[in-house]
């Protein structure tokens, strides 16, 4: 058995090497070619842009997964450590197992991307190196540190248990710090291409590399990607659990993966709620950096991209809520909240429709003449930012309400101040909704520069309400009376397809946002500094981009399924080191909704 395991590990190590060799064979034959520095070389058959696009997007997907999942895995491990509940420890281990399996693929794709840049965009890469060379070393060292720490974290799970658990948790924290540092460095390169700083008009570095790193969109992207990685990691982990649930043979297995899927979705949803706010910040910084870029992004050739984004995010909101509502059916006592579901669904559906309403409609010439333009006399009112900001903020509030109801579904507070507490909570919801609607309507009567500032009040009201409601909720339901235990595993199978829908949709959305981030540079490698003079300088239309995103997403999920399958092989035939103890929650075995 040991020999078999050793062979497997050797095979894992050999896989990246073999793939790199295959990749290298597609690169220009002679190393000295690079020294001659033609501006571009053409990748066989597909062309250089498609090759870089596909590998970059795949690398980003895997990187987001392996950076996002450890963040909540270590939090779950801490919960298990402090509460002494084995099911949390099992879950944290299960999550890290997924990361571990995807680690080498991420590195392999990163190396492939590097080779593609060096081989097919040599001038561009030479320029980037002239700016960022000092960061390469730091990046490489951090990657080593991250790899070894995660390996130690994973393999040391049993070794560093019991009294040494604090050390193990520390390894998890440190690996996350390394991971975040890696993300920030890579973001410096990417954001420099969008919003270069610290360079002269001809592109030469003026002062230290820090000025180039600390460019206008660096920190907003750091925050946005960090949150998005959590959402992504959560959705993929939940989809994995859903797949295992659907394949489960026993009630115990179903219970375990139902719970795992719930936690994955909970993590994704929690982070997803704040993601639009990070997006606003990023958008504002893009406008502040360069109005032309901002306007091109929102009002130029990319304007329809945001309609697609609205549809995807609407599906994510609807799906997340639907999953929670389905999940409430396995919680005794939740019946009292079912009456709210139609109203919440109505708000979400209306919000979805408003958000997805384009400012200019696709119409025939006759229709345009009849309407007096491409703006519909009635629907056109919903196509502007005032309406969209209002819709998304109300959708966030509604989703938060769904979660609050789910959280208290089988609990009855016994605190004497429960009525006051609940009254304040409902008031917080209504006041926040009123502020959101007020500024949404008021926005139609003021100049755009004033209107942009209103979104801050709307966001502030929603975040304030969330903070206030949770501040009251946690103590109010501490020691609450139970109306019954959650029947983990007894959830409709369609709920698991919802989890898969969320994972697929979010992955596709990431691809779309990657296209948006890259596409707003248009015909520039480095915006305003280095022009793209290649055959691929044209920024493609959305249909072309969508085809590409779908292909990459299919490849990503195929690779993920293969990797998870490989990881699952190690479970077969061996005792469940972390699987036997935890049975996280048999049907009817848990009172916690968290």
């Amino acid at each position, binding site marked *: 058995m040991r020999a078999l395991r050793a062979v497997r590990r050797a095979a894992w190590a050999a896989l990246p090497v073999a793939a790199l060799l295959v990749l290298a064979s*597609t690169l220009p034959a002679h190393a000295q070619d690079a020294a001659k520095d033609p501006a571009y070389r053409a990748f066989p058959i597909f062309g250089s842009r498609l090759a870089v696009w596909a590998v970059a997007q795949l690398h980003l997907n895997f990187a987001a997964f392996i950076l996002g999942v450890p963040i909540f895995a270590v939090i779950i491990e801490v919960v298990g450590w402090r509460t002494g509940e084995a099911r949390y420890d099992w879950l944290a281990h299960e999550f890290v197992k997924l990361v571990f399996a995807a680690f080498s693929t991420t590195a392999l794709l990163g190396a492939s991307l590097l080779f593609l840049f060096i081989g097919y965009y040599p001038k561009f890469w030479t320029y980037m190196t002239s700016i960022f060379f000092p960061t390469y070393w730091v990046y490489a060292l951090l990657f080593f540190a991250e790899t070894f720490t995660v390996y130690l974290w994973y393999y040391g799970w049993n070794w560093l248990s019991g009294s040494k658990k604090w050390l193990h948790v520390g390894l998890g924290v440190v690996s996350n710090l390394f991971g975040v540092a890696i993300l920030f460095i890579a973001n410096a390169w990417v954001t420099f291409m969008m919003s270069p700083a610290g360079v002269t008009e001809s592109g030469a570095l003026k002062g230290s590399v820090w000025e180039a790193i600390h460019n206008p969109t660096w920190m907003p992207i750091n925050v946005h990607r960090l949150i998005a990685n959590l959402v992504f990691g959560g959705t993929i982990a939940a989809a994995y659990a859903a*797949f295992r649930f659907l394949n489960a043979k026993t009630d115990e297995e179903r219970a375990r993966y139902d719970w795992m899927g719930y936690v994955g979705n909970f993590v994704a949803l929690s982070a997803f709620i704040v993601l639009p706010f990070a997006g606003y910040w990023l958008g504002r910084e893009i406008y502040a950096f360069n109005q032309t870029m901002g306007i091109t992004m929102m009002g130029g050739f990319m304007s329809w991209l945001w309609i697609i984004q609205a549809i995807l995010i609407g599906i994510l909101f609807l799906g997340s809520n639907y999953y929670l509502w389905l999940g409430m059916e396995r919680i005794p006592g939740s019946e009292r909240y079912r009456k709210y579901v139609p109203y919440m669904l109505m708000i979400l559906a209306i919000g979805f429709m408003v958000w997805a309403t384009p400012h200019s409609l696709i119409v025939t010439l006759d229709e345009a003449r009849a309407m007096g333009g491409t703006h519909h006399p009635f629907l056109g009112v919903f196509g502007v930012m005032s309406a969209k900001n209002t819709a998304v903020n109300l959708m966030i509030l509604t989703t938060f309400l769904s979660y609050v109801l789910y959280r208290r579904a089988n609990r009855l507070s016994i605190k004497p101040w429960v009525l006051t507490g609940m009254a304040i909570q409902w008031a917080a919801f209504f006041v926040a909704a009123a502020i959101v609607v007020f500024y949404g309507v008021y926005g139609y009567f003021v100049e755009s520069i004033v209107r942009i500032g209103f979104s801050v009040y709307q966001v502030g009201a929603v975040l304030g309400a969330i903070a206030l409601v949770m501040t009251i909720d946690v103590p109010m339901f501490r020691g609450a009376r139970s109306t019954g235990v959650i029947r983990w595993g007894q959830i409709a199978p369609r709920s698991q397809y919802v989890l898969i829908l969320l994972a697929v949709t979010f992955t596709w959305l990431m691809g779309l946002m990657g296209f948006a981030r890259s596409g707003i540079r248009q015909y520039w490698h480095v915006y305003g500094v280095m022009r793209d003079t290649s055959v691929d300088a044209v920024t493609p239309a959305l249909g072309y981009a969508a085809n590409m995103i779908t292909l990459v997403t299919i490849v990503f999920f195929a690779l993920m399924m293969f990797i998870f399958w490989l990881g699952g092989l190690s479970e077969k035939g061996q005792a469940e080191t972390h699987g036997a103890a935890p049975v996280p929650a048999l049907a009817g075995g848990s009172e916690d909704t968290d």
Partner: protein
Amino acid sequence: MRVPVGVKVSVFSLLVMGSYTYFANSIPQIESKPPEDLSLEGGNVTPAQLVEAGEQIFRTKGTCEICHKIGEKGMRAPDLAGVGARAAKRRPGYGAKQYLIESLLDPGAYLVEGYPNIMPHVDKPPIGLNRSELWAITAFLESLGGTVDVKLDDIPKTAGAAAAAGAPAELKLPGDPKAGEAVFAGKGACIACHKAGKIGASPVGPDLSQIAKIQTPEYLMGKILNPAGMGTVAGYPKGVMPPMFGQTLTAKEYVDLVSFLLTLK
């Protein structure tokens, strides 16, 4: 027959992605193409042609239309209807063309009341208009209610210089592409190994049909004179391209040939 979960999940996922892809393909499809540079220096241009060229730049490379409307109050920037007449009265001591040129090159120098200082310098990247383009766009703006009297010499010689930093290297060769094509197919015998658009079909060397899009002029010139020194394209045998063109071609033939290759886009 029971369908495996993996198949069901895969079909479901493909349907989800397929619906997104279908939607994205059913909305307006707009590409963003790199703008083409306009050069009017040394040419005879009528005011009408200049205005027409300026309007084209206004709507495309200049990206002016994103913020400025004509005959409609803009939210981010002033309405330009009648600006040709209005410009002469904006700043004391400034005629219409001086004011318009300053607005393009140093937009923050004078702000129309009620509008923020957000306009970029249009002669610098990423917009990067060159002198000819600045000349044309000034003429277009003058034509909006005023008289077109701007000359190329009114545009500062330094204007547009910064744009060149980000622009592709522009090499103006005195060669004749037609004659170069004859060299390619005749004396140079390039056709024996290379394809170039409709000419030739030999697969011995790389297809040059789009060579000007992927290679720089410097590379092409170097490759003809010193093929081995410029490296070998992946997948082709090393040392096959003859190294004697520097001796067999005349200077004119060489320049003509390069000029021809630079038309292959």
